[in-house]
């Protein structure tokens, strides 16, 4: 069974980020594998192992032919990658990204399943996986908290606010996975060394048959997150638990 994983390389969230003039994040430094994509890579590796054969391939879009983050996923065990690196795609919106990645999926060879994270840790649009499914004309299953493949179908436990749905869907399909679907492995020493020589195919939008690239969406303004408000302090008079219950009840969480 072959699985394609969409992965994003992002600026290190531990470092202070900077914005470009168009309000998108500056991406000229070293990029790392988005942690939320490491779950999809691990899930794919486990599915291939469970199937007894096949390969995990990666598709990604990044400026400057950046591969640092891809190497991490290759070191975990993916076999190859298709990287779309094209200056004309800088600042691309979600739909354009989805079209490009769908094109890259076509370059990555035969596949049974496409996996993506639910949303990236830098852009947070949370729409790309579903758009890829639409472009490819495949079923889309979102928020997977577990995935099992059974013959020609995939069984997904789909996280909801109240619990989870059990979804069965024919393959091929596009499934987005939540953080925690599986615990990602750390790349081993041997994995890191082997990743050096794994193939990464660099392509442009034109190579994918995407000739004119433009998008209608733009980020018009960016504001700082509101400062955290001071909490309410309640002295414990022996009956404080009632106030905690009341508070949680008001939030409708109990």
């Amino acid at each position, binding site marked *: 069974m072959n699985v394609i994983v969409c992965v994003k390389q992002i600026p290190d969230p531990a470092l202070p980020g900077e914005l470009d003039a168009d309000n998108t994040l500056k991406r000229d430094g070293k990029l790392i594998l988005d942690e939320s994509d490491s779950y999809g890579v691990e899930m794919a590796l486990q599915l291939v192992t469970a199937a007894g054969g096949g390969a995990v391939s990666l598709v990604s879009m990044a400026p400057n032919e950046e591969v640092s983050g891809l190497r991490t996923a290759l070191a975990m065990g993916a076999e190859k990658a298709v990287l779309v690196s094209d200056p004309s795609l800088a600042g691309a919106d979600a739909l354009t990204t989805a079209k490009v990645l769908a094109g890259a999926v076509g370059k990555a060879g035969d596949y049974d399943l496409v996996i993506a994270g639910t949303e990236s840790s830098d852009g947070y649009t949370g729409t790309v996986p579903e758009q890829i499914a639409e472009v490819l004309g495949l079923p889309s299953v979102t928020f997977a908290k577990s995935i099992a493949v059974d013959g020609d179908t995939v069984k997904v436990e789909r996280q909801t606010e109240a619990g989870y749905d059990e979804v069965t869907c024919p393959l091929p399909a596009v499934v987005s996975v939540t953080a925690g679907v599986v615990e990602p492995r750390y*790349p081993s020493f041997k994995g890191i060394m082997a990743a050096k020589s794994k193939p990464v195919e660099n392509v442009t939008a034109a190579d994918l048959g995407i000739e004119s690239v433009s998008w209608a969406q733009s980020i018009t303004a960016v504001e700082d997150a509101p400062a955290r408000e001071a909490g309410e302090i309640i002295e414990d008079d022996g009956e404080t638990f009632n106030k905690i219950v009341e508070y949680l009840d008001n939030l409708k969480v109990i």
Partner: protein
Amino acid sequence: MSTYTPPTDDIRFVMTHVADLDGILATEQFGHVDADSLAAVLDEVARFMADEVAPTNVDGDRIGSQWQPDGTVVTPPSFAPAYDKWVASGFGAMPFEAEFGGADFPWISAIAVQELFTSANMALSLCPLLTQGAIDAILAHGSDEQKATYLPKMMTGEWTGTMNLTEPQAGSDVGAVTTKAEPNGDGSWSITGQKIFITFGEHDLAEQIMHLVLARTPGSPPGTKGISMFLVPKFLLNDDGSLGERNGASCVSIEHKLGIHGSPTCVMSFEGASGWLVGEELDGMKNMFTMMNNARLSVGLQGLCISDRAYQQSLEYAQERDQGTAIGAEKGTSSPIIEHPDVRRMLMTQRAWIDAMRALTYTNAAALDRADAAAASGDSDEARRWRELADLMIPLSKGVCTDVCNEMTSLALQIHGGMGYVEETGAAQHYRDARIAAIYEGTNGIQAADLVGRKLAMRGGAVITDLLDEFESRAEELGAIDGLSTFADRLAEAVGTARTATAHLVEHGPSDPRSLLAASGPYLRLLGTTVCAGLLAKGAIAASSADDFDPAFLEAKVTSAKFFGEQILPTTAGLLAAVTSPADDLYALTPTQLL
């Protein structure tokens, strides 16, 4: 506090611009390694250590390893999952021979991995460290069969190793060991005796433990010449290599210590345990020394690691804690204590020494690599030159870094004020953990004696003066850089002081060995501080013109080196009198008068 920020940029800077990684990778022996791959490996090791190992450090201290009445030792619950992931990662095998599962990487890369592990959790890091020592000994002296049988699983960490030297009456004086080895007639030996202070002598992290034990064979001469080294596995091996019956080696208790509570310090009892000779009979002491250099460098590295971990915590605290109004701040406001000059001095002192210790230990590791590479290529002159430099630096790395670490962890605690003295803050753990490093693997008194005994004598002191010559020309180079002329002057002065001290000891040492030993401690600090400054100067010169790092990072490197040169290095002048004064002053009072 359990957070740890791996200093990957600084490790890469020191490797590249101080320890000449390119020079190591240009040798035939290490030519198969490229700097980018090494950087990728270290990035992953750093992430692993910060995320998986660093959070186990506090548990390790509070819960500690526990001895059970059945002779087993239970490590803190967070240790085994972290250790299992370490084994799965395969990072431990990097510096060892590919033939047994390693990757033939240079030792400097192992030092970087060790730094990250030790800073994350010093107590747990001792388990792979001791294993590494045992691997070294077996690699150098074991039979082909021993290597093939034991090394692959030791290199992965599936099996761990120990070093059994010390006995109650045989500490620094290893020649006093009484543990006996009697031949069984089938090539094996029967080992009987008791060993103390055996790090990870018993634990639940791995299925098998390989003990290397120093013991006396029948009729052996007294002292260090009569000692042999034996390999004593916890479980005997079946013919198919699987674990068989339990050998007669057991842990009868563990020590209750000031720090490193997660690391079980075992009293080991050998009762007719089966052992196999490693190397030749009576060569035990010599064989032990082949791994001693690496082990001593690693303990020096611990001084760097715990200083850094404690520093990171104190730096964060100094920015969060508001007390008093700093000079220049608005009246009536409370300033973060980092704004007060006294706290700044403590932080700058830590930062500068940490930079210095990293420069020293990594340069030491690089010299070991260059010596190995030159020997492998058949260039014996080159090999001797690097070996001498490495040998000189070993007591400096071990002695200076672990002495300084006691001071740095104390400063980190001091910055926390009263809260630093309270255990829940976590600053006290580093202060306690650090304390052992100046004691074990040869006390710092032994290091100083090694420096003035063996190392000063190398080429009649010329190994030291060659290095000082190099620093003197570096001082000239430094003086040409804008803003660094004072640092350059101080470096030239310190080199002069070190020359005077060295010349004095070379001249008077042979005729007055007691005064030589009396001078050894201050001399070690004097020379070590000077060598640190010389290496920091190399880094500062490189940082002044480099463009391969963030400009703010490079500026900080220069500033930190300058602070060391201008405000710490001059302390060496004050040590000179203690170096040149006769030992008589130390004996002027009788023991009764000392009371």
